[in-house]
């Protein structure tokens, strides 16, 4: 295992950034976000970023093509897929697991080439958690926050950073940083994870009963009654993956881009005949059943939530996947 003195973390960032573009979680106007490292940029002290690490593979807005219209001819220039190698440092175990969920959607044939290129060019360095928030429930989804995965796993303990390569890509990056020392990571005390209030959530029941039982639950009415239909829960969620394709028109040029969409929005999957989710109840149900039932049903039981707790922290009315899952479970017995 490699090690580095934490008091010189900046030097390590500089060494990585000398080879590839580096993103670290840093505070931008008081809000932690993955930010391109430049000399002087400090890592945030917050546990996790407001928006998740998925931004770096699936950005909120991404150009797909540009059209130039002159007379009767239209010339099309497709957007270039990203070709630059880059490193993401400080990804938590929950966000790292979210990449598996996103992969199962975006890399399934036909693969999403933009996402695929970004994934292929990235080296993910994860960071083990020692101080979870009360809203964290990764452990109840089988994620070990102290063995976070990715191309390289990192631990911070006793003033040092410990780095362990998990993949050839991770090994190559570590090998390119010759000043790293050798060392063994000291044992950390994980007892705080046993105290997490949501550690015993069990989502298995959602695969045990037929889909329609959940779909037709009478509880959706009351669960969704105060939902504002905003997109906060969707846009902070590391596993939400829906997007819309839009045209930005400016005279003779049209820029076609995709942008995140939310099933909580009234025009989500709008069709010529109108929408098939006419009220907030149906939209709300879509978001939660997608994560708890539809995604696992289609992907060998993989639940579409990684327990990062962002939706628990950010929903304006404090309605979230934990409350929904608990209520549905109680209501079904």
């Amino acid at each position, binding site marked *: 295992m490699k090690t580095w003195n934490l008091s010189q973390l900046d030097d390590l960032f500089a060494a990585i950034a000398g080879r590839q573009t580096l993103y670290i979680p840093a505070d*931008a*106007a*008081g*809000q932690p*976000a993955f930010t391109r490292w430049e000399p002087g940029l400090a890592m945030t002290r917050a*546990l996790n970023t*407001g*928006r998740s690490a998925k931004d770096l593979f699936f950005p*909120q*807005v991404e150009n797909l093509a540009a059209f130039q219209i002159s007379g009767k001819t239209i010339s099309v220039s497709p957007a270039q897929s990203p070709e630059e190698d880059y490193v993401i440092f400080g990804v938590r175990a929950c966000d790292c697991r979210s990449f598996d969920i996103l992969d199962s959607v975006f890399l399934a044939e036909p693969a999403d080439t933009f996402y695929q290129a970004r994934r292929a060019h990235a080296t993910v360095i994860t960071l083990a958690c020692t*101080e*979870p*928030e*009360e809203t964290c429930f990764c452990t109840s989804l089988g994620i070990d926050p102290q063995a976070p995965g990715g191309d390289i796993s990192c631990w911070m303990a006793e003033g040092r950073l410990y780095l362990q390569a998990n993949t050839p890509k991770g090994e190559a990056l570590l090998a390119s940083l010759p000043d790293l020392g050798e060392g063994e990571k000291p044992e950390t005390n994980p007892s*705080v994870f046993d*105290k*997490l*209030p*949501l550690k015993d959530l069990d989502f298995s029941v959602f695969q045990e009963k037929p889909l329609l039982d959940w779909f037709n639950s009478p509880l959706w009415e*009351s669960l969704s*009654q*105060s939902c*504002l*239909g*905003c*997109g*906060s829960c*969707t*846009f*902070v969620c590391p596993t939400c993956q829906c997007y*819309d394709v*839009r045209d*930005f028109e400016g005279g003779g040029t049209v*820029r076609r*881009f995709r*942008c*995140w*969409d*939310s099933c909580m*929005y*009234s*025009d989500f999957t709008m069709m010529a005949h109108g929408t098939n989710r006419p009220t907030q109840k149906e939209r709300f149900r879509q978001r939660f059943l997608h994560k708890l039932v539809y995604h696992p049903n289609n992907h060998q039981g993989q639940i579409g939530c990684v327990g990062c707790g962002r939706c*628990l*922290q*950010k929903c*304006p*009315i*404090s*309605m*979230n996947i*934990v*409350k929904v899952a*608990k209520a549905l479970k109680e209501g079904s017995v």
Partner: protein
Amino acid sequence: MQRSVIETAASLLETGVCTRVLGWKTGEFFYDVTPAVFTSAEEVRKDMVFTPFCGANLSKYLIAESRKEGKIAVFLKPCDTFSFVQLQKEHRICRENVYAVGVQCPGMSDPDALKALGLKGLTGCVQEGDTLRVDTLYGEKAVPLADALSLRCRGCKSKRLHDCDAIIGTQGKDLQTSRFAQVEALEAMTAEERFAFWRKELSKCIRCNACRNVCPACSCETCVFDNPDSGVQNKAAASSFEENLFHIIRAFHVAGRCTDCGECTRVCPQHIPLHLLNRKLIKDMNTLYGVYQAGADFETKPPMLAFTLEDPEASIITQGRNGQ
């Protein structure tokens, strides 16, 4: 206070004054209450709460709820009653279907305020006089109540409860707080500094629309930004210009109707100080057209709907009526 709110709600249902109660429902933690409609006294006694974490303003829900069959009782804090009156002024609420209970407010606390103090892993909280004893995963911490106050309560404009059928606690008064101090600080900046401040803040926006959807002044059936025929519909900003425009247009659309209830800033997941935009417009309108508070009464004409020949032309002059 908690007990009288619950008992009032339960007895309103038991005595048939109303068939539904709009209040706050307990959650997983001490702070994550959800607005909810209760239909029986049992439900109320089981799940309804009134704690220092009931920040959510319930008045906007009355747009839909007051149109339903039967009477609904609603619990409103002083700032919420301004929205309640303003919504009635805009003919958005059927008043005859509402029984409004005003609850005097000690100031609402906010989990974000606790986290800003460096507290992590919040698991429990009890109030003892002016102190909150907060249990965390990392031990117990005592926090002065004043330090846990939410941003908007620090600039509370009034403790007066407007247009209520009943009041719990005592009627309050308008307050003099320095709620425009930060606006003045922004005005004192150079244009470049101010632009940089807003670019930095607004570039955090993820266009989740929570600010708009929670706002009692944003009650259009279809927002211009959701209307595919408007030409300005944007689900995500295609450029930083559009991103800024959303906020500035929204601030102008609610000008003279925004009661400064503070919900937009409370709900923003990216902690953008949206209230500063609204307060700037409130401050300017006060200067140009005389002091006006949206939602304070039913009679006063809002400055954007009233016209007198003496009105200054804000677009071509920089001085207001009183020369300021």
